């Protein structure tokens, strides 16, 4: 979710296989660099593999260009990597959030084969995505300060995952 010169990225902590809970501390939001984060919902192994591949590509970029990747560029990279596997995809829906030039917040989401969707307010993905759409749509206001943004994102996340049996076991919210 976008705020005033800041963004929030959040996820739940459950890792499950249908009705069984495997972990209650699973990390789904990963850092690419200080001002760029990616959240990956869907298949756990694909989320981890995709993260490892993206970090690899970003480190190479840093070596060649001697700077960090812009969020827009990174989003295009993720989209290309996902589309490479068009007929045998990674079962992940990424949510990308970063601060671009002048600390302008950037967010986007994609489907599992890389169709990018930019948004100005918020993006959601995962099994509770419909609930998240409803909660975020009701609770979002433009230009929220970091403290208010944190409250909003936390409330939206908690209410939505409480209505989804496959999500839950706590939440993780990061404000940048």
């Amino acid at each position: 979710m976008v705020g005033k010169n800041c963004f929030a990225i959040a996820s739940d902590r459950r890792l499950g296989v249908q009705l069984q809970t495997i972990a209650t501390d699973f990390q789904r939001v990963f850092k690419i660099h200080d001002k760029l984060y990616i959240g990956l919902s869907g298949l756990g192994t694909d989320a981890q593999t995709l993260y490892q591949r993206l970090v690899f590509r970003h480190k190479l970029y840093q070596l060649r260009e001697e700077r960090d990747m812009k969020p827009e560029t990174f989003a295009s990279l993720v989209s290309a990597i996902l589309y490479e596997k068009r007929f045998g995809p990674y079962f992940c829906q990424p949510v990308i959030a970063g601060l671009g030039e002048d600390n302008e917040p950037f967010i986007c989401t994609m489907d599992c084969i890389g169709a990018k969707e930019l948004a100005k307010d918020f993006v959601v993905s995962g099994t509770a995505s419909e609930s998240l759409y409803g909660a975020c749509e009701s609770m979002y206001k433009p230009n929220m300060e970091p403290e208010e943004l944190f409250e909003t994102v936390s409330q939206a996340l908690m209410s939505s995952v409480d209505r989804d049996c496959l999500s839950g076991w706590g939440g993780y919210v990061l404000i940048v």
Partner: protein
Amino acid sequence: MARFDPYENNGGTCVAVAGADYCVVAADTRLSVGYSILSRDHSKIAQLADKCVLASSGFQGDIKALQKNLAAKELIYEHNHNKKMSCPAMAQLLSNTLYYKRFFPYYAFNVLGGLDSEGKGCVFTYDAVGSYERTGYSAQGTGSTLMMPVLDNQLKSPSPLLLPARVSSSSLEFELFNPLMVVFLTPLSESEAVDLVKDVFASATERDIYTGDRLEIVVINSSGTQREYIELRKD
């Protein structure tokens, strides 16, 4: 080979919220088939008895049949018992009527709202085959997954899993703070509940393609039934 499919989803969302002495039942008025809109002005709300209102989303063909069935049974009840059916009685009747067709169900997702025999608001929520529960609030239909988390966030206390609701009226305090009595009421005033319903519909209309056009809000309280219409986004 194309087989005849007896069902169709006409979309739409229904909500009901119960209060200390009122009940708000609301539904949008859009009727859709696939990606087309058949009508922007089709009511999903039916008045079954003077303090009992049914809002249904799903397959409107089955819904019309269900409403006709319930109205007929209500009339027979009036003839046999010399009084109109109360909301909890209608709730049980609806459940039985739905389960009667357990192996070829009514494709109807219902929310029944009204006042119980003590004049307190009641809301009953159903699945397609008649499983029901009295709650303080509920949403059913295509936009229900978008609305329920927001209603939970604003109205959490009426859930029977949590502590009893706070209500301003002091006469209800004994009942409410007595842990043996679980009360299904919202701690909001009537106008606050109506505003909340308008807000959740505005949000659901943004993200659900089957919800929109117009919102019909029915408020049942001791003075009777009032109807209000609010315009929603038409895209």
